[in-house]
């Protein structure tokens, strides 16, 4: 809705271009797209409107897949004037494939002079092109070392220039840097660099970069199982509130994972839920969607809840969640032996998802569910029977386990030791302060949503002046009307024999 409104005045051209591009996306060559993006970035810098840059970056994922050496080279040559030094540096980074060299030379000499101005575009465009080249280098394994050099040079460029209009692009560059180090298997070595950059970013109030870097660091810690450090980082930093949705989604996901390991399931659950809500559409980013759901399901189980059945029918999730579905089934039936078998069967899958230790913790939940089911269906059951039904090792164990379940509030009841049985109390009534608490939580959420969306609304610049003028007009008209009425009334009054007119 606000998006439509803002395309009124100066953005009209861009909107038109987009409209033209949308219906026939196949015809637009990547070169043209890069060029139009460069124009958009220029406009973003000159009008101080980060919106245009963000629009450019939104197309990054799709554009990335269509890059090749020639495309990049053509784009660079066309954007920069002929004798620009930046151009030669950029071209130097693009790998040379022998077959294309000749054709490229012709392109470079013939095209550029035609329509471009003689000066270099803004540095943001250079960084954007560097970002594209970096992503392109990462597609082939042989170029990793070159990619790393490029990454380092780009980063030092960004930090030297220190331009706020560059922040959104810089945040994406950091992501590419992380990928570079991760693919070359040196993620741990990049950490000092990230930490230093994070400090700088927070000093410069560079929110985009800061958000991106915090996520980079969390990922790097979690990759190496350094949950303690990750937790400390979270508690010592403030995640910038203006960060983009996708950064928020990642951030919540990482916090969810950290808290799940630290047994703080409630916090983990809220964070994972937030992450799912903020995540891009399942079809756009299926990997992330699946990864978050895996942890979400395990945490939900650990909290003693059973996830929704419909979740496992979701087309994107169905296949990848199959092991988890089986686990949910065993937890639901409360059968220990089945649980162990399923855990064993899917061990490799859990291992790759890095949820194995979390799933293994579910064992006690299986027992709890079992006891709970028994306590619901029996008013009085002997410990011996509990032992048989839940496949426990001894009656003694059963007594302790039931005792613990009662203490933890899983079931209501008591043990009669002399007789060796468990008596189950009546179910707690479900109406109480908890209900109002739940309502308070939900209402709070709705109100916050409303307030957030009010804040998120955008209006075209200076449009209020026109409205003001309108308002002024309206007021004039009203005055006239009032006057007329007053006069009319006066007339009436006159007719009625005179008197003081009504005062306004």
């Amino acid at each position, binding site marked *: 809705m606000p998006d439509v409104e803002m395309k009124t005045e100066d953005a009209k051209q861009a909107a038109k271009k987009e409209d033209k591009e949308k219906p026939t996306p196949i015809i637009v060559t990547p070169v043209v797209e890069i060029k139009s993006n460069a124009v958009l970035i220029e406009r973003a810098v000159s009008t101080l409107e980060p919106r245009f840059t963000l629009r450019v970056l939104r197309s990054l994922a799709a554009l990335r897949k269509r890059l090749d050496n020639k495309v990049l080279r053509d784009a660079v040559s066309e954007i920069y004037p002929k004798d620009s030094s930046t151009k030669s540096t950029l071209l130097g980074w693009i790998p040379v494939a022998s077959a294309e060299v000749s054709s490229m030379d012709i392109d470079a000499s013939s095209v550029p002079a035609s329509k471009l101005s003689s000066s270099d575009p803004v540095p943001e465009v250079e960084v954007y092109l560097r970002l594209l080249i970096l992503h392109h280098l990462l597609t082939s394994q042989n170029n990793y070392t070159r990619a790393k050099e490029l990454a380092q040079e780009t980063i030092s460029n960004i930090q030297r220039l220190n331009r706020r209009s560059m922040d959104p692009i810089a945040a994406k560059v950091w992501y590419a840097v992380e990928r570079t180090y991760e693919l070359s298997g040196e993620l741990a070595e990049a950490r000092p660099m990230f930490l230093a950059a994070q400090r700088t970013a927070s000093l410069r109030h560079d929110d985009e970069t800061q958000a991106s870097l915090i996520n980079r660091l969390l990922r790097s810690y979690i990759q190496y*199982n350094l949950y303690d450090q990750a937790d400390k980082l979270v508690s010592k930093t403030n995640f910038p509130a203006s960060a983009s949705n996708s950064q928020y989604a990642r951030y919540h996901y990482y916090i969810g994972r950290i808290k799940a390991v630290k047994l703080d399931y409630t916090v983990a659950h809220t964070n994972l839920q937030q992450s799912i809500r903020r995540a891009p559409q399942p079809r756009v980013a299926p990997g992330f969607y699946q990864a978050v759901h895996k942890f979400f399901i395990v945490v939900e189980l650990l909290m003693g809840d059973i996830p929704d059945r419909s979740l496992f029918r979701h087309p994107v999730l169905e296949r990848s969640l199959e092991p988890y579905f089986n686990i949910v089934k065993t937890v639901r039936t409360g059968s220990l032996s089945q649980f162990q078998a399923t855990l064993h069967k899917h061990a490799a899958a859990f291992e790759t998802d890095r949820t194995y230790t979390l799933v293994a913790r579910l064992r006690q939940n299986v027992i709890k569910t079992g006891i709970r089911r028994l306590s619901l269906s029996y008013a009085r059951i002997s410990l011996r029977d509990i032992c048989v039904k839940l496949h426990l090792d001894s009656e003694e164990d059963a007594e302790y386990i039931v005792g613990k379940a009662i203490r933890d509030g899983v079931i209501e009841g008591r043990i009669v030791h002399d007789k060796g049985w468990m008596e189950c109390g009546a179910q707690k009534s479900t109406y109480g302060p908890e209900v109002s608490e739940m309502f308070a939580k939900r*209402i709070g959420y709705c109100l916050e949503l409303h307030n957030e969306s009010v804040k998120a609304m955008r209006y075209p610049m200076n449009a209020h002046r026109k409205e003001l003028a309108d308002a002024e007009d309206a007021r004039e008209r009203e005055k006239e009307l009032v006057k007329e009425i007053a006069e009319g009334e006066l007339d009436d009054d006159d007719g009625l024999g005179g008197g003081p007119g009504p005062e306004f």
Partner: protein
Amino acid sequence: MSTLLSRLHSDVTRTFSSSNLQKCGEHLSKAKLALIESDLIFPSVHKKVEELVAARDILEIGAFWSIRTKDVPSFDRYFSQLQTFYNDLSSVLPPSQREYPIRGLNLIRLLTQNRIADFHTTLESLPLPAEKLVTNPYIQHPVNLELWLMEGSYSKVWNAREEAPAEEYKFFVDSLMGTIRQIASCEEAAYHVLPLKDAATLLFFRTQSEVLNFAQERNWQIDIAAGQIVFPHKSEEDMEIPREKLIANDLVYARELEQIV
């Protein structure tokens, strides 16, 4: 490697293997000084490998020595010093025989202090694939203990005290039983009356007087004549309505709605 360090290293090893704890402690404090002087206590990768190994050896013996002298805070210190060797220098140094016993001891220490969250964080950060966790005897032991503690199979914990994979593990059993009794005192919630005799078995006490002491600590009522413990059971207390909270909530809603409409 400096001659002083190598001499101290052999001193420490010798006195430790002959289990002369007092002498060993004296040598250890000298060795630690030497380590600090030669900058090995927080080492960097650039040190010679044999120096690092000697330093690690001394610290490992120190960790075991602390357990044998029943000094848990000292074990804590040694363990945190060893972390550098185990985590950051693992690519440089040959693996140590004592690494997993010490890591396992640290896990049990966390259990006895009831720091379950730390226990799991430490477990996650072990450089082992998940299936190895259950095959490595030193790690498996604390992992099983935690499992049993959490599900409430206390008798299994009690029985496992004899199956400790290393001598030092047994030191923790007593304090672990203390932890268990704290957790195991579900009695208050789960029973109305409990015969003294059975309470002793349930709480792993050997004599009745121990039970009586424990019961006094927790303010249980003891009916000596009937030979049983009575747990005062709170009757269903009246549901307190959190008035102030409700009023505060309602006021917030009113204000927010005012803003919307």
